[in-house]
């Protein structure tokens, strides 16, 4: 296999075009000082790092919470007194020195785990990070369309996080009604401890978060649609960009509906309206509410909630597609099919929301349609899986950490996706609803899988972010441990679910039906603890590598074709020192005509031009 010889600097100088960027930004006052460079930065690469590191902090907090409630589930008899310094009054220590977790706080932990992981980690931390990092670099733009709004997007997210974090320290505890915040627990301040100030702060935090998503999303869409470099047609964009574009569109269209629902909830809480509340007794007292419907909230929530699942998984799919292709040294199989399946998934995600509510009292007639639409999602998903596997087939695979995580993503997406077909059937859902089967399904398919996509992205683009590699040995330990550990945690949960073990319960040992699952729960808890510490290993690897990692020697360490690898190793403001590169080919010319890889900036050869003409 030969190697194409090219010199980016010459190519960009000759083929690219001069936008006079550096004439306007000579000396660049916008990132000269410490504050404008590292804190209120408007550079997309810095904002990406801010999203990533904030997301990692939240991931540690959210995962730490899951360890606490897993301890409760796995070892309900054992003392948690050692957590007293951390949790304070939420641990009661009896005379014998046995500490027990307050049941209300167990619910708060479950709720916060869900909210934090879904919104702060897998939405902001994943698409926030990689959309920011890769969109301008891969479409060939100097920065986002509006760097100012991009900066604000991060700071709205940050503020949302601060509010949520503060709510953890309320004397009544944070919101404890589940991450979906169904009424009446969310709509009546007196419904439970966390429904008062905790819920108010939860709503405030989420509204700010939505502002952040919208500011980011509008920016991403505009940048992709309007700021592509010369020659970067839509059909030459890498699949990452397609995924980020569609993700941003999903967020743009679905988050506003969540805001609608949250505003209506706030009215029910504060002004005594009855949008989501009908006749209800609380503490023996009949309330004035009449005529509303809690199911209406569920409809509005899941109109966001289901696209949200794809907001989480699509970026991971995009990252995986790119990493698989680069490290298999093969063009992605079925590029257009990949794009169309992303579009199909995005479209379908808006018409299937009520499959989360089969057991909430949705009209069974309308459920039929939701079942059919839901099952159709299997088609584009299967197309993607087939294409990933076909990309791997016969590839010259480099088993680096990034690639391992990308392959792991495919594995998890298959295992988690298959159980989705069970749950999408309204009839089977009667048995499965709100059991650990559901927990296992969505954790594998959109929790762990999205994390794997994210890890693949981090290991792959770390050299772009920091000019250094992450430690490969630690990366592989991280992969194998997490891969085996994740299955060890979630595989048994399918059995628990099929036996009818309900989720969100504080303890099971006093139910005769479920008490024999005690050891299985212990096993899951132990696996979860091991996986948690493996993630700490990753975090250590990440931060140590920023300063101590192996330096990147060339601009294009992975031999990739996309534009980000034509920028200087230590990223500069404006991304390219001189001209903006022009693009001549799609992003997946690997192994073409016996050449290992041909970057997008390399002009077509005479032979290629002839072939292109023949096609027309």
């Amino acid at each position, binding site marked *: 296999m030969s190697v194409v010889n090219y010199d980016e600097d010459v190519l960009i100088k000759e083929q690219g075009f001069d936008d006079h960027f550096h004439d306007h930004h000579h000396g660049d006052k916008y990132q000269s000082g410490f504050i404008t460079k590292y804190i209120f930065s408007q550079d997309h690469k810095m904002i990406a790092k801010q999203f990533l590191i904030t997301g990692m902090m939240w991931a540690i907090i959210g995962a730490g919470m899951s360890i606490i409630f897993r301890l409760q589930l796995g070892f309900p008899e054992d003392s948690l007194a050692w957590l007293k310094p951390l949790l304070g009054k939420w641990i009661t220590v009896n005379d014998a020195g046995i500490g027990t977790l307050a049941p209300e706080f167990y619910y708060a932990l479950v709720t916060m785990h869900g909210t934090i992981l879904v919104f702060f980690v897998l939405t902001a931390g994943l698409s926030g990070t990689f959309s920011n990092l890769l969109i301008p670099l891969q479409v060939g733009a100097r920065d986002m369309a509006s760097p100012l709004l991009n900066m604000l997007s991060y700071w709205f997210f940050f503020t949302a996080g601060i509010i949520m974090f503060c709510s953890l320290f309320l004397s009544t505890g944070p919101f404890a009604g589940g991450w979906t915040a169904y009424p009446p627990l969310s709509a009546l301040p007196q419904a439970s401890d966390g429904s008062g100030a905790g819920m108010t702060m939860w709503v405030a935090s989420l509204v700010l978060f939505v502002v952040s998503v919208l500011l980011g999303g509008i920016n991403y869409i505009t940048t992709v*649609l309007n700021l592509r470099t010369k020659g970067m047609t839509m059909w030459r964009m890498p699949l990452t960009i397609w995924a980020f574009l569609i993700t941003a*569109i999903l967020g743009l*269209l679905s988050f506003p509906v969540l805001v609608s629902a949250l505003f209506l909830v706030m009215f029910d809480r504060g002004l005594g309206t009855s949008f989501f509340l009908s006749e209800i007794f609380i503490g023996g007292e009949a309330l004035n509410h009449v005529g509303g419907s809690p199911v209406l909230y569920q*409809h509005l929530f899941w109109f966001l909630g289901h696209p949200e699942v794809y907001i989480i998984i699509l970026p991971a799919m995009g990252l995986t597609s790119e990493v698989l292709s680069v490290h298999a040294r093969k063009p992605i199989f079925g590029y257009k099919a990949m794009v169309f399946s992303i579009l199909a998934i995005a479209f379908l995600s808006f*018409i299937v929301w*009520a499959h989360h509510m089969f057991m909430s009292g949705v009209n069974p*007639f309308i459920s039929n*349609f939701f079942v059919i639409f839901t099952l159709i999602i299997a088609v584009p998903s299967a197309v993607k899986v087939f294409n990933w596997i076909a990309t791997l087939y016969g590839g010259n695979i480099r088993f680096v950490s990034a690639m391992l995580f990308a392959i792991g993503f495919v594995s998890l997406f298959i295992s988690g996706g298959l159980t989705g077909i069970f749950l999408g059937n309204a009839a089977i859902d009667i048995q499965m609803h709100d059991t650990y089967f559901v927990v296992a399904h969505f954790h594998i398919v959109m929790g762990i899988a999205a994390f794997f996509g994210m890890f693949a992205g981090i290991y792959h683009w770390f050299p772009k972010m920091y000019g250094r590699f992450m430690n490969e040995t630690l990366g592989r330990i991280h992969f194998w441990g997490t891969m085996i550990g994740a299955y060890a945690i979630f595989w048994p949960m399918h059995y628990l679910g099929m036996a009818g073990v309900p989720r969100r319960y504080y303890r099971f040992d006093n139910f005769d039906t479920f008490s024999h699952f005690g050891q299985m729960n212990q096993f899951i808890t132990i696996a979860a603890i091991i996986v948690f510490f493996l993630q700490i290993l990753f975090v250590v690897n990440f931060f140590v590598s920023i300063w101590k990692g192996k330096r990147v020697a060339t601009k294009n360490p992975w031999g990739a074709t996309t534009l980000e690898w034509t920028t200087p190793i230590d990223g500069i403001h404006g991304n390219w020192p001189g001209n903006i590169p022009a693009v001549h080919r799609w992003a997946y010319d690997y192994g073409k005509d016996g050449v290992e890889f041909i970057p997008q900036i390399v002009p077509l050869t005479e032979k290629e031009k002839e072939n292109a003409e023949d096609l027309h």
Partner: protein
Amino acid sequence: MSDLSYEESKKVVYKGMIVLAVITLLEVAVALVGKGYVIEGLHLPVWLMYVLMIGLSLFKAYYIVYEFMHMKYEVKGLAMSVILPMGLLVWAVVAFFSEGNSWNQRRTLIEKKNAETIDDRPKKSGSIIDLKDVKNLN
């Protein structure tokens, strides 16, 4: 942007004003005539009124977006990127409204069944008569 001259585009605006005003008047007229406020004894069928009013409103929306917001003069891709996503709401409207309708039907059914139980119990069960029911029957 538009290829119209300043004078022409000015005309378009005032034409737009008249169109929107006339449509609004038409809508109100349909609402009032249809319910017999204007001509004694004349009522339009409800479905016809709904079709007319929804149709006119959609036309008004189209007119505002395409003329006043200049969507007509934008690139087709831009127009489609804004208009097509609105199509996602069609199924939402169908599903939400049919859900609302089904809540109504169920509440009515429950109320009916509740009423039936009280009336039927003494008759159906014959011998088993609650003292409370006897009191109510008197």
